[in-house]
């Protein structure tokens, strides 16, 4: 069928009669659903809501910084804007985005299961997220938050005049949502794989989520405890971090970064998983070095736990500690380099098309390269003593978080949109939007590297005039970036209702999720699938209807091992 659609001689494709979207109607059927696909859409709506709130704050920041003295906002308002931008984007957009939307929707489909292992806990985790989000929103409208997203003590626990307690409580609560999602993924991946779906036949998207889940489960409790202690210090005056009461403000930073550095990998690993799906699909070729790419996800998750104090090189920590953490930081760069080289190598000998998801994959590759390499500057002790806490850092982590994680997220959303909705997005409009995003992003954040090296500290509502030209460039870029985000929001929504019917496997791609109708039925598969092929193998998949040169195909191998 899919072959026919590519040669243009097929009768018009039709949506399946019954699928997860029309199996039940009414608000109750959504709010009480245990279907991982519907929960993914609940997350899509709420995470998008928070993305646009965070985006609004970002726009305010950039507009304010157009002039050195900043006429738009007062100092206090500006401080609230960047703090709430950070809190919203980190805890309510970046951390949940790919796992809870794409991961939730796809992991059961990819491993050939009917749902996640604990469907009710999955729904519970969404409600927890909403409750946490509500507390944080409450903080934003009743005084805002001006501590910086890092909540450094004693500023946050003693000196801040903003609504710190509800915001901290919100982040604390949302953490449980992360833990439950991670737990659900781990159990699902371990116990619910279809016959023949061995560990090394898993799509790398699943491997990446496995590593992410481990970090979520091990790291999140630490931030919960830390924020709990900070809240107690602020509300009840107990001295944990306040030096006036015998506490240690540096202890807070250790505890905070013990979670918040691995949290960076919670944000980027799933995006790496998406890219590992996109590149083989649009190069129609096996991923180069599958085992190395899978192993590097685990290596990142493990080493990522022992690099936290590189955020603290200039707190006065011991010189020996700084040297050890710098060394470990350089080590964690290596698995990312391995992934990048393997993705690039996959392109060689491929049959590469430039559909929108692939454009995002190329965009990711370029931006992640810059983001990752600039991480080496910051991990390097002798450079960090100059650029620490300047715009260089801001530029670096936006290249990772926006250039990496968001590009991966949008690429994945375009790639699986036909599966989620049964309909295609408008291809040319999407390509233009991807291009606008790439240009806007670089114009926004590249000048900030220069600003940082010139010495402009971050979190400044006013700055010396010699920094203005780069700030103007950055603000101009941000305006372009805003258009780039509004476009997909508009046309993806439109496409969900009026787009061209996609069919079961429009690309075609090799994963199990493409062997069920689009949109899938509530139970995902009519019969439990049996996996007899290796991942991303286009040569032994006659069902995809591709032109395979006769000498390259080999007989399908049976499932091996008992895993």
């Amino acid at each position, binding site marked *: 069928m899919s072959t026919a659609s590519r040669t243009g001689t097929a009768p018009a494709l039709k949506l399946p009669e019954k699928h997860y979207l029309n199996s039940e109607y009414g608000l109750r059927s959504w709010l009480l659903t245990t279907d991982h696909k519907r929960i993914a859409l609940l997350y899509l709506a709420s995470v998008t809501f928070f993305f646009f709130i965070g985006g609004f704050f970002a726009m305010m920041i950039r507009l304010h910084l157009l002039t050195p003295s900043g006429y738009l906002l007062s100092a206090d308002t500006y*401080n609230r804007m960047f703090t709430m931008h950070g809190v919203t984007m980190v805890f309510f957009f970046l951390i949940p985005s790919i796992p809870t939307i794409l991961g939730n929707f796809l992991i059961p489909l990819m491993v050939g299961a009917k749902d996640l292992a604990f469907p009710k806990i999955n729904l519970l985790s969404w409600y927890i997220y909403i409750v946490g989000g509500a507390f944080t929103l409450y903080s934003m409208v009743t005084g805002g938050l001006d501590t910086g997203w890092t909540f*450094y003590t004693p500023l946050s626990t003693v000196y801040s005049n903003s609504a710190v307690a509800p915001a901290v409580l919100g982040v604390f609560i949302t953490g449980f949502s992360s833990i439950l999602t991670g737990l659900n993924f781990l159990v699902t991946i371990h116990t619910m794989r279809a016959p023949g779906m061995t560990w090394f036949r898993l799509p790398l998207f699943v491997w990446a989520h496995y590593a992410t889940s481990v970090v979520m489960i091990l790291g999140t409790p630490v931030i919960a405890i830390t924020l709990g202690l900070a809240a107690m210090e602020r509300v009840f005056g107990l001295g944990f971090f306040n030096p006036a009461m015998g506490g240690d403000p540096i202890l807070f930073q250790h505890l905070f970064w013990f979670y918040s550095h691995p949290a960076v990998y919670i944000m980027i690993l799933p995006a790496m998983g998406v890219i590992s799906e996109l590149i083989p699909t649009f190069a129609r070729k096996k991923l180069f070095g599958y085992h190395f790419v899978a192993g590097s996800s685990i290596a990142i998750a493990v080493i990522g736990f022992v690099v936290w104090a590189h955020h603290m090189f200039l*707190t006065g920590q011991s010189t020996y500690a700084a*040297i050890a953490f710098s060394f470990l930081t350089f080590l964690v760069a290596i698995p990312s380099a391995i992934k990048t080289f*393997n993705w690039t190598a996959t392109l060689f000998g491929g049959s590469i098309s430039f559909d929108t998801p692939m454009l995002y994959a190329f965009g990711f590759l370029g931006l992640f390269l810059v983001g990752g390499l600039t991480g080496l500057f910051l991990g390097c002790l002798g450079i960090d003593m100059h650029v620490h806490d300047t715009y260089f850092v801001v530029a670096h982590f936006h290249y990772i978080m926006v250039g990496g994680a968001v590009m991966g997220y949008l690429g994945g959303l375009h790639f699986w949109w036909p599966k989620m909705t049964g309909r295609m997005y408008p291809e040319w409009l999407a390509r233009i939007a991807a291009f606008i995003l790439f240009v806007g992003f670089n114009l926004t954040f590249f000048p900030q590297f220069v600003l940082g090296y010139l010495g402009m500290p971050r979190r400044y509502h006013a700055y010396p005039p010699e920094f203005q030209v780069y700030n103007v460039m950055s603000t101009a870029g941000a305006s372009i970036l805003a258009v780039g985000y509004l476009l997909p929001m508009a046309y993806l929504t439109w496409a969900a209702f009026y787009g061209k019917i996609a069919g079961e496997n429009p690309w075609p791609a090799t994963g199990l999720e493409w062997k069920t109708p689009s949109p899938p039925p509530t139970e995902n598969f009519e019969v439990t699938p049996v996996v007899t092929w290796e991942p991303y193998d286009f040569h032994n998949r006659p069902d995809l209807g591709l032109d395979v040169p006769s000498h390259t195909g080999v007989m399908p191998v049976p499932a091996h091992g008992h895993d």
Partner: protein
Amino acid sequence: MAVAAEISGRVRRRKEHTRAVQSPLPFFPEQASSFAGSVDTLFLFVLLTCLFFAVLVSALAMFAAFKFRRTSPAQVGSTLEGNLILEVGWTVIPLMIALVMFAWGAVVYVNFRIAPKDTLDIYVVGKQWMWKLQQPNGKREINELHIPVNRDIKLILGSEDVIHDFYVPAFRVKMDVVPGRYNTMWFRPTRVGKYHFFCSQYCGTNHAAMGGEVTVMDPAEYAAWLSDESGNMNPVSAGAQLFTQLACVTCHLSDGTGRAPSLNGVYSGRVLLADGTSVTADDAYIRESILQPKAKIVAGYQPVMPTFQGLVTEEQIMNLTAYIKSLQSQPVPAKGAGIAPAATGKK
């Protein structure tokens, strides 16, 4: 009027700044300390190495995207799926390069963290949202720092409230200023001029306004500036005054016969404690002894000293410390039971 004055001030500042810029590359701020050159060289090394890899990977990806573009709708790629030699190569080579960056960076940083002997010490106190600085002779400044060129300068940093950070881009150095402890940083200014300094750790409402100017002067000019306006009391005499005001003097008798140990010659020596251990009497120990006297009891004495937490400011502690330091040159009394001078090396 005020606006016009502000604008003209800004234009003037910009002109001054333009004059000061003498950097080899447009994205370098001016180089004005002994660290600027080594940080910039290291930065260039890392930058060029990273550029090489960025260009290599991008060029390979673009080449492949063009060379292996799809030519017919149902075309598939090759069966290539990996190569162990390549995998080992692109793991080991980047690792080696990363280790070079690590080692070079560590050398520059260690040099920054270990101050040379015989520095010009300046006390710096950060508070929301201003810097108070004090020269060795007691001369005070707010949001301004005057220092002589080509002299090793050490800043002793304390905070009265939240965490701040003292950052001079032209010197390529910064250090957090953490309440409850002292951090130090050092540098040697190498060029006469005026340079911005910033607070670079977010500290609340007026964080962005918490900066000022470092003025690097010729030694002769600095000496003239320093002796000008001698109305300020130097830290030692301010500390001596406090020592009497706060009644420290009633117990810490200088001949060692009081209820508390004599402080003569204590500074930088070893002090034997009641629990059998010993500790070096540095700035941090003196500070702790003032704020938490019961934390480390000197051997042979009772824990009778009250805490001065909340009664003395950071500046006053620094003055007291300076005074105690100044007692260094006087002879150590024989009866000082708790004092174990470095020379005796008591177990």
